[in-house]
C-alpha cells in the first residue's frame, strides 16, 4: 500500500481484521429479470470503495438489497460479522448503516432542520445531536442559511447536500452513497465530492456508487466495475484509473 492512499482511507491496519462489510453472491431480481447476478465484494473499515458502472448496470439494485429496501434473491450480506440480509429496513440505521438514496430522497415538506433531525431519528442524545447538526452546517454552510426552509424548495445540489448531511446525522459506521453526482452542475459536483473526501478523511467507511467513474475512482481507495449485474473488474482505484478497459469504457478515452 503506497503512502498516497492514506488520505483516501485509513491505513492498512484494518486489513488484518474481518472487513466491515462482506457481500457474497448477491443476486437481485425484479420478477424474472435478473438485475444483479451474484456479485461478491467487501469493504474494510475506514476505506472508501467505488462501485462504478453504466446506467442500468445494477448499482442501485445492489444498494436496495444492502439497505433492505428489497429482498435479495440470493447471496449473503455480512456486516460487523453478522448476517444482516434479513433485518427489517428500519433496523439497519441502528446497526450503523446509512444510505443516501438515488435521487436524494429528501422529505420535501419537512424543513432542512427537520430533515436533519430525521437523520438522527434513532438517537436520543439531544446535546450531541445539536452538535452534529452544527457539524453538518459546517460541512455545508448553504444548508444553515436555509435551515427553516422546506427541503422541497432547495436546488438539486442543495438537496444532495441535505441527503448526505441527514445520513451523517445517524453517526453511521458505513455510509452508502448512490450517485451523489447525478444531475448536478459540475461546480456542485466538486463541492459535494470535497465533502465526501472530508468525511472519508475523518475515518468514515464509504461505498460510493457512481456513473462518474473518474471522480469516484479519484475519491476511492479501491474500486469494482459492475456490468450488466456482474462485477467484471476490481483493483486499487489508482490502477483502475489507468486500466485501458476502464479508460475506454468509462473515462471516454
Amino acid at each position, binding site marked *: 500500500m503506497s503512502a498516497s492512499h492514506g488520505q483516501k482511507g485509513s491505513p492498512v491496519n484494518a486489513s488484518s481484521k474481518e472487513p466491515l462489510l462482506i457481500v457474497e453472491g448477491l443476486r437481485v431480481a425484479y420478477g424474472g429479470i435478473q438485475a444483479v447476478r451474484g456479485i461478491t465484494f467487501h469493504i474494510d473499515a475506514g476505506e472508501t470503495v467505488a462501485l462504478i458502472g453504466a446506467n442500468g448496470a445494477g448499482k442501485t439494485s445492489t444498494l436496495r438489497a444492502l439497505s433492505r429496501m428489497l429482498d435479495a434473491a440470493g447471496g449473503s450480506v455480512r456486516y460487523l460479522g453478522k448476517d444482516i440480509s434479513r433485518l427489517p429496513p428500519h433496523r439497519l440505521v441502528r446497526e450503523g448503516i446509512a*444510505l443516501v438514496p438515488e435521487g436524494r430522497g429528501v*422529505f*420535501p*415538506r*419537512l424543513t432542512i432542520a427537520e430533515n436533519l433531525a430525521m437523520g438522527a431519528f434513532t438517537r436520543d442524545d439531544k446535546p450531541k445531536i445539536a452538535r452534529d447538526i452544527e457539524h453538518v452546517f459546517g460541512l455545508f454552510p448553504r444548508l444553515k442559511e436555509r435551515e427553516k426552509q422546506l427541503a*422541497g424548495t432547495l436546488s438539486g445540489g442543495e438537496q444532495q447536500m441535505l441527503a448526505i448531511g441527514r445520513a451523517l446525522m*445517524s453517526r453511521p459506521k458505513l455510509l452508502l452513497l448512490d450517485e451523489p453526482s447525478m444531475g448536478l452542475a459540475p461546480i456542485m459536483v466538486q463541492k459535494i465530492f470535497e465533502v465526501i473526501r472530508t468525511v472519508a478523511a475523518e475515518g468514515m467507511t464509504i461505498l460510493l456508487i457512481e456513473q462518474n467513474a473518474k471522480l469516484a475512482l479519484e475519491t476511492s481507495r479501491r474500486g469494482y466495475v459492475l456490468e450488466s449485474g456482474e462485477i467484471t473488474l476490481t483493483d486499487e482505484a489508482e490502477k483502475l484509473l489507468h486500466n485501458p478497459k476502464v479508460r475506454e469504457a468509462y473515462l471516454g478515452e
Partner: protein
Amino acid sequence: MDILLQQIINGLVQGAIYAMVALGYTMVYGIMGLINFAHGEVVMIGTLVAITVITLLVGAGVPPAMAGACGVVAAAAVCMIIGWSLERVAYRPLRNAQRLAPLITAIGCSIVLQNVAMMVWGRNYMTFPPLIAKTQFEIAGASFTSVQVLILLVASVSMGGLLFLVYRTKLGMAMRATAQNPAVAGLMGVNANRVISSAFVVGSALGAVAGVMVGTYYEIAHYQMGFMLGLKAFTAAVLGGIGNLAGAMAGGLLLGLIEALGAGYIGDLTGGFLGSHYQDIFAFAVLIVVLMFRPSGLFGEKTGDRA
C-alpha cells in the same frame, strides 16, 4: 329575526364535529393512502360506550360532569383499541394488495362493527344523558347553548393537541416523513408499522371525542348513526383535500356552515318546496362538485405534500 348568525353558530358547532371525525380519515389516508370507511362506525361505538359508562356512573351518584369525563376516557380507550385492531387485523395483511381489496374490507369492517353494536346496545334509539346544565345565551338575536360552547372548546383543544403532536413531536415528524416518503423514512429508522398504527389510534381517539360530542349535542344515539356521520366527515376531508390536516379542519367547518346555511335558506330558495330536513343533500352536492371540479380539495396539493 335574521337567521344568518344563528345558522353560522349552528354550522360551526356541527362543523367542529365533522372536522374531528374528518381528521381520522385524513390522517390514515395521508400516511398510507387508505380510506378507512369503518371510521364512522368507530365514532358510533365511542358514542355508545360513553352512554353506557355515563349512565352507569350517573346512576351510581357520580356528578354528570365527572361521569362525562370518564365516558370520554372510556370511549377513547375502546375506540383506540378498535382502530388499532382494524389496522392490525384487517388492513395490514392487505398492505400490498390491489386498492380495491382494502376498500371492500373497510366496508366489511363497517358492517361487522354495526352488527356488533346492534348486538351489544340493541336496535333502539338511546338517550344520551345530559353532562352539563344547558344554559342558553343570546347575542344579536341569535342564541347558543353551553353545550355548543363546550363542543367548540373541546374541539379546539383536541385539534390543537393534534397539531402539536404532528408538528412538534418526534412521532409527528415520523408521521409526516412517512407520509412523504415511506421507504426513506424507513432508512431513517422509522418503523412504518408503528407510525401507521399511531395514525389509526390517534384518529380513533379524536373520533371517540367527536362521538361524545354528537351524543351530547343531539342527546340521542343509535347503532346506525356512524354511517351518515362518517360519510359527511369523509366529504369534509375530501373538501379540504384528503391527507391534509388543516384541510380536514377547514373542510369540516365549511361543510357544517354550508349545511346549516343551506338548511336555513332552502325553504326560501325553493319557494317552500323543500324543507330543512333536506339539508343532507348539501353535503353530497358538495362531495360531487368537489370530486368533479377539484378532486384534490381546497388545500390539496401534490401527493408528496400530504399530511
